[in-house]
């Protein structure tokens, strides 16, 4: 916890009528202690700007702490300070004590939103293009609300994956678990530029997309732990999560690419302007069926955005060792391509917007290569350091982390405050904790559902169990 100065007009705290307004303005962990006619001012030196909570040393020793201890409250009407968390509690406790002695109450916080920038323009890296006359814009606008929403979603994704890591190590999650941390900007950036009525399909590193496409953290985590509250009732696991207009979660490398083109075919067949975003990795990019799909998608001008998430390693094989050409955005040969900075959410968003326009204009498929990075190994059974160096991972984390990049942009352009972002962090942490709690306590699926969901819309059938006398029931 740390605190800093904030100045606000005194008028907003003047009248007792405004107490209710203040209560609404003040967010946890701030607590309104009471309204008073006076103000409290504590000046806290810069040296207290750090993580740990420490005793507050007022800058004006003769004024405040002594005053509080002695039961006096010093007022400086022209400014108001607010403090965070435990600091606030301490001060407000002290102040309350003072106030009671003084017969007056103490108010300690106010915050105004008046001074945030609501919109700013950012420069993003220019995308390399292939068979395109122009590329996506390099000047990108983001609003404060958008920024906060992206931050929240990416942070939720990050924390969810880290929690999954924890649960896997505790053996509460089993089997395959391919984590997405480091690549958040891709999922969130793409979703920012497509509509809920568009479609998306990806491979097995799918938790992030399940979230952006409408899954809940609870549903995802409970699916990972194999419980009945899971998004696929515990029957699919990490790689087989589905929701509306999201076709998983696919375990066979590369198989999702023709599926995605098929979804796009359906979009066009039905006469809609919907498109399908079809993702695969740098490893999958060498699969034959992908080239078959490129051919048919281009031939039939299907509205599909092929996206290669190039995180530099296909399992343990680096791109140089797997591909004769690592220019994945050019591998579509007759399909126009873009190479995008996948760690910058705004770059991803802008490129996706460009690609979506291309598809919706009926120009056929387009290919995007997102250059991104995964912090974890290929899956939870891969420590991820036998084929790459820790230094490399550290370097990406420190220089290119997508969440940090966004955070810096928001803060340095005064689009959000540190406290606000911290608040989001706290909320996210709580959401993840609650979800993990649910995921570990929800019961497993009931055994009598073992054989259900073999066929859709079919009468109940009998399914042979492990022995001839085991006749199990299956309903649609």
């Amino acid at each position, binding site marked *: 916890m740390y605190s800093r100065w904030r100045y606000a007009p005194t008028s907003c705290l003047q009248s007792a009528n405004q107490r209710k307004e203040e209560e609404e303005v003040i967010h946890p962990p701030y607590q309104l202690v009471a309204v008073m006619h006076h103000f409290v001012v504590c000046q806290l030196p810069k040296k207290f700007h750090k993580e740990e909570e420490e005793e507050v040393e007022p800058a004006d020793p003769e004024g405040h702490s002594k005053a509080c201890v002695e039961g006096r409250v010093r007022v400086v009407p022209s400014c108001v300070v607010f403090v965070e968390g435990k600091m606030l509690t301490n001060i407000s406790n002290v102040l309350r004590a003072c106030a009671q002695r003084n017969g007056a109450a103490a108010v300690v916080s106010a915050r105004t939103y008046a001074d945030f920038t609501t919109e700013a323009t950012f420069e993003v890296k220019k995308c390399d293009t292939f068979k395109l006359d122009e590329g996506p814009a390099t000047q990108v606008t983001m609003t404060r609300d958008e920024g906060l929403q992206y931050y929240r979603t990416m942070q939720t994704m990050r924390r969810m994956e880290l929690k999954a890591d924890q649960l896997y190590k505790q053996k509460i999650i089993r089997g395959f678990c391919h984590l997405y941390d480091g690549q958040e900007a891709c999922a969130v950036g793409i979703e920012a530029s497509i509509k809920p009525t568009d*479609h998306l*399909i990806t491979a097995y590193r799918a938790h992030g997309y399940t979230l952006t496409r409408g899954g809940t953290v609870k549903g995802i985590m409970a699916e990972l732990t194999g419980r009945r509250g899971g998004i*696929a*009732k*515990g*029957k*699919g696991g990490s790689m*087989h999560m*589905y*929701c509306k207009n999201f*076709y*998983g979660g*696919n*375990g*066979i490398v590369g*198989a999702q*690419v*023709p*599926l*995605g*083109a*098929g*979804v*796009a*075919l*359906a*979009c066009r*067949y*039905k006469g809609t302007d919907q498109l*399908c975003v079809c993702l695969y990795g740098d490893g999958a990019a060498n699969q*034959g*069926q992908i080239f*078959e*799909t490129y*051919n*048919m998608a281009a*031939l*039939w001008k299907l509205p599909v955005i092929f996206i290669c998430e190039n995180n530099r390693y296909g399992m343990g094989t680096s791109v140089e060792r797997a591909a004769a050409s690592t220019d994945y955005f050019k591998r579509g040969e007759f399909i126009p391509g873009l190479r995008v900075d996948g760690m910058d959410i705004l770059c991803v968003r802008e490129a996706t917007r460009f690609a979506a326009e291309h598809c919706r204009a009926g120009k056929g498929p387009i290919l995007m290569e997102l250059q991104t990075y995964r912090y974890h190994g290929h899956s939870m059974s891969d420590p991820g350091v036998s084929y790459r160096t820790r230094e490399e991972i550290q370097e990406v984390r420190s220089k290119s982390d997508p969440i940090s990049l966004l955070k810096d942009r928001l803060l340095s352009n005064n689009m959000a405050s540190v406290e606000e972002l911290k608040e989001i962090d706290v909320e996210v942490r709580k959401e993840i904790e609650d979800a993990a709690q649910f995921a570990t306590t929800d019961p497993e699926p009931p055994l009598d559902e073992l054989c*259900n*969901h*073999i*066929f*859709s*819309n*079919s009468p109940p*059938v009998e*399914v042979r169990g492990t022995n*001839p006398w085991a006749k199990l029931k299956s309903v*649609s």
Partner: protein
Amino acid sequence: MATSLRCFLRSGKRAGLVAAQRGFSRSSAAAVQVNVRDALNQAMDEELERDERVFLLGEEVAQYDGAYKVSRGLWKKYGDKRIIDTPISEMGFAGIAVGAAMAGLRPICEFMTFNFSMQAIDQVINSAAKTYYMSAGLQPVPIVFRGPNGASAGVAAQHSQCFAAWYAHCPGLKVVSPWNSEDARGLLKAAIRDDNPVVFLENELMYGVPFEMSEESLSKNFTIPIGKAKVERQGAHVTLVSHSRFVGLCLDAAAVLAKEGVDCEVINLRTIRPLDVECIEGSVMKTNHLVTVEGGWPQFGVGAEICARIMEGPAFNYLDSPVTRVTGVDIPMPYAKILEDHSLPQVKDIIFSVKKTLNV
């Protein structure tokens, strides 16, 4: 009269060329002669008309009228949107078909022969068959994979394999294998209307064979339930169970055996998965003897499954002798005619096996 006409047409040889007429020929008041190819064609035509979401894709299905002319005339009638010629990319177009099914359409994916489906078998099994289960009911896949299966004539090893056992092994798939025109029409309509992945195994040698079809079977909503076998011939001494082309051979063998006083009951499976075990069991409990006949290889095949199921059920106690399997020879299909002829069950092999089973 109808029976003798049928026997005449099927007299032990490979019929292929009675399909000189493309249209119908009326032989009696209510019955009409339709060959299997036309039955399939009409079924697809009617289903395309009935439901806009149905479409056909595959190699040569449109402008070529179908490699075996099964989709003749459909492209002219429905156009490029609904009858789609694909490049030679089985894995790719099968995946595209499955994706389209996931997104709400009802594709018919044709494999020129099921031998080529091996290129795409991952999409059939992992993307189509298993998805409804993995998604716990969120994502159905209403798709039909169809095409000729099994041996043809002189096409040698890579083009002659029977895939009934391969596909029937997998939960999540329905596998059907029609024999005559009525089967073809009713089962294809049922398959297209089914909300699940169906593997529809045709037979190239049957395409040109005409069969009588009743008015009822020619009606627009005629479907045959998937999972129900049909007793083609009632009998008392032995049960012959078969699917696809070999049902015809069983009936021919039954005709010959009848003259020798052996009364055969012939069951046409129609569906391989789910297998209609009750029908077989009921028959075995009556006749006490069972002979299975198929074109596929013996090991781990349809006949093997039937044997296992009979053993596990009540009919076992009614068997007076072990079940006999008549199958294709356990070799890749050779080319030379004499070798090819001896690689598949012939009527004489069925007769021989029945007599051995009955110990006569």
